[in-house]
């Protein structure tokens, strides 16, 4: 897999920590955040993998991907993939090192550092997924399917978490160092699995609308 090293944006980290318009930060905090970003860059081991299936079979809410490599029930995914030609499943992680360090910091009562580093980790794994998605976009472009749907993760809508073990098996989660526990939560915690549909035209399926338009990624919405 090519370079997945995420660029961790400081403003994103601050937002993750609750920074708003009228929040007043201070130099000490700014320094701690910068240090945490630098430390994270040192210790995280971003890895990821994806797998593309050329076949999607949908019957009502039953889906089958590839040569029945993955089958499951989800009305939301059935809608997401309704007009898509192919589908990609992906997994990324930044490794266990960062969260081990966060736990250690908490244990040492270094609460501020722990909280900040945890937020940095959340941004880092999202960015790692974005990096991987860039590679997927490039491949999709090459095969003439330039439109990607949103990245849909288990736990979203009616896509149950219990699909995690199958997803991990397909994208070789074990090799990436990603497992899941009995409640189907990913370990390391800073990991993501997701599905993306590939097609020739923009998917019209949107995530359930909460009308938080300014924050919405769904950019083909008619409510300009």
């Amino acid at each position, binding site marked *: 897999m090519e370079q997945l090293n995420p660029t961790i944006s400081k403003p994103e980290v601050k937002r993750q920590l609750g920074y708003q318009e009228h*929040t*007043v930060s201070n130099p000490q905090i700014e320094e701690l955040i910068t240090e945490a970003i630098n430390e994270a860059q040192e210790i995280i081991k971003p890895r990821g993998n994806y797998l593309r299936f050329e076949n999607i079979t949908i019957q009502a809410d039953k889906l089958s991907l590839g040569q029945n490599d993955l089958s499951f029930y989800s009305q939301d995914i059935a809608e997401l993939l309704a007009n898509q030609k192919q589908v990609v499943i992906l997994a990324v992680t930044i490794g266990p090192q960062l969260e081990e360090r966060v736990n250690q910091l908490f244990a040492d009562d270094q*609460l501020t550092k722990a*909280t900040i580093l945890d*937020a940095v980790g959340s941004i880092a794994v999202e960015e790692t997924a974005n990096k991987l998605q860039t590679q997927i976009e490039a491949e999709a472009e090459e095969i003439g399917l330039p439109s990607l749907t949103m990245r849909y993760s288990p*736990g979203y809508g009616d896509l149950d978490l219990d699909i995690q073990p199958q997803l991990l098996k397909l994208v070789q989660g074990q090799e990436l160092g990603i497992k899941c526990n009995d*409640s189907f939560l990913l370990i390391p915690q800073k990991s993501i699995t997701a599905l993306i549909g590939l097609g020739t035209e923009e998917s019209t399926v949107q995530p359930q609308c909460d009308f938080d*338009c*300014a924050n919405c990624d769904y950019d083909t919405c008619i409510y300009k």
Partner: protein
Amino acid sequence: MNRFLERLEEEILVLDGAMGTELHNKGLEVGECPEKLNLDQPEIVQSVHQSYVEAGSDIIQTNTFGGTRIKLNEYDLGNQVKEINTQAVKLAQGAAKEDTLVAASMGPTGKLIEPMGDFPFQAAYTAFAEQAQILEAAGVDLINIETMTDLQEARAALIAVKETTDLPVICHLTYEDSLKTMTGTDPVTAIEVLDAIGADVIGANCSMGPEGLLEVIQKMNQDTSARLSVEPNAGLPELDENNETIFPMQAQEMVSYAPQFIAAGINVIGGCCGSTPEYIRQLQDKVKGLKPQPKEKDSTTVLASRSQRVTISDQHPTRMIGERINPSGRDKFSEQLKNGSLELVSTEASKQAQAGADILDVNMGVPEVDQAQLMKQAVTTVQNATDLPITIDTTNQEALEAGLQNVVGKPLINSVTGEDSSLNKVLPLAKKYGAAVLGLTLDEDGIPDTAQQRLEVAKKIVATAEDYGISKENILIDTLTLAASAEQEKVLETIKAIRLIKEELGLATVLGVSNISYGLPERHQVNTSFLAMAIEAGLNAPIMDPTDENMKSALLASDFLVNRDPAGSRYLDEFAGQEDNSKPEETTTAQEDESQDPLDKIHATVLNGDQENILNHIELALENYPALDIINEGLIPGIKEVGDKYDEGTYFLPQLMMAAEVMKKAFSKLRPILEEQQSQESAGKIIMATVKGDVHDIGKNIVKVMLENNGFAIVDLGKDVSNDQIISSALDENADIICLSALMTTTMPRMKEITQKLKEVGPDIKVMVGGAVVTEEYANNIGAHYSDNAVQAVKKAQKLV
């Protein structure tokens, strides 16, 4: 003069209302391309235009919001960009009356531009330029850029329109409840950046309805002479009983905000999502005959980053331009940059910001590298590391343009000289990208000997810049420092030139200071004296090393002496805490201690998250107060105030945690004393756990710390804890409350099970629940209590015991 600009001076111009919602009402399906209707069902689009013309719109807008090639490509319509946009203009013109103006709507591409996203600035620019030129050729009167959520995309669109057409342009951004755009720009910063690029009217549209937008417009108007525009939506959309989207606000209510908008300084008003022809009719009735507020030209020099502005003037503190992002004379730095590593760029940016730099100079003068590429990476790195405005320091034109494209905000170009070749190369770029420019007083004949001659060069730079349409406040002048060891007699000419620039031109001044001591021993002695002299003469922004304590002290002292530091508050902030060696030590400490009650001090220490001093303060307080009073009257009120500040958003999570660390330290000192006196009172006993199967415990840990600090006794069972273990501990410990955390829908049912079981075995024990997926509704359903952050959890727990 364009008829739009002409009328803008005299009238409040009324735009039209929503296009999207109206088309939707006429049958457009969600997910269809609204612009395609221009070709497929032109009569529908034209009927919307007609309804707005009849309602009295002075300006109607073409159905081209998503009409860039990039956006149309999402529907495979990119190759019809010309037909779709041209046809849209025809439809609007067909509906227009003779005096109706036709504005072309231009909206976002849907891509996030670098540096925040990965879509190249140039690609967005090209798409906007293409659309704008088609619209101009089709005959629109002006362009209206709308609903931009990222300042960088707004820049791309605005620069494209200004550069490739002669049309006037309105530029609207969309703000969130925080009064910032999605990518963190506040209205005042936005206006600075867009005004510098040359927007004729600047505004806000969509998002939070008229009430929120009024606040945005009021903020904008405080600090600008720019003309303003607003397009509110009809409140936030709701779903009705048939699951149809409706906008709740009626025309009459929306129109009631119009007088306030006019008082807040708008020149143009319309409507966004959910606004109707009826609204426009009532709006026109309301504003007819009203005149816009007069605007006064504001001529202060301002630079901006994505999220903050720095004003440079004689009424403001002297600004430090940090010089350390510069590899010249630093082998390790050069080597790193050649190898493509920007680590030192990032470190130097943070270090200087930390030291108090106001602006950062970025110089990537390394031989044998792609200067443009390196400059682009460097400005991106600096913007990720800090929120400070940037000075692009290069003589390479490609590098300059790459820097200008990728700096989000209003940068300073370092530099242009009085040479024609330099002026003609740099000034067009400054104009195009809305940058300020630093003029060096040298020309084809080199650096003039006298101050008077340097003033002449400065005048030439100003005159040429004004010819290019760059106004005076966007020009800063550097009168050039020469090494005193070589040309001692010219030192005072540099100082005199600053004075002349101030008196004759009134411009902001910049000076690279440290060159003065080149070749001398003890350079800082000369540097600090020279800096003080220059500030006295009127220097506004030295280029210097902010991490050099000597220089920073000289700057603060000088600012105090020349009265740019009212009441010496910055000087005192920096130095008042330090021991003054000239006084006997005891006197100072004694005075300081008497001046403030020890409990107030402890309160302040918690508020400031000051770990270093908390134990000292506690020890001092213990001389006069019992431990319990220190807790109840010093620490607890302190952490309460921190909690309030967190609630209102003045503090964010790091401050909450810093205060928590101070509390922990204080308790570690006080707890043994309390135990000895047996006066320990607990606010209540709480069992905490993340439920079985769930491994996420960051949120729980934060809540725990806050509860502890507010006097609760906590038993933390950790994560992945079974129902039985949680319940039996609660019974054993005689707990008042069980706090449960769950992050996922799969583990959330444990909360319900525990709550139900408790009804049988421990009905007096209250259950509090929280976590990403947990809602108040869920908590109510299972008979538990909910809070959505750590501060709320404390308040809830206090109520429950």
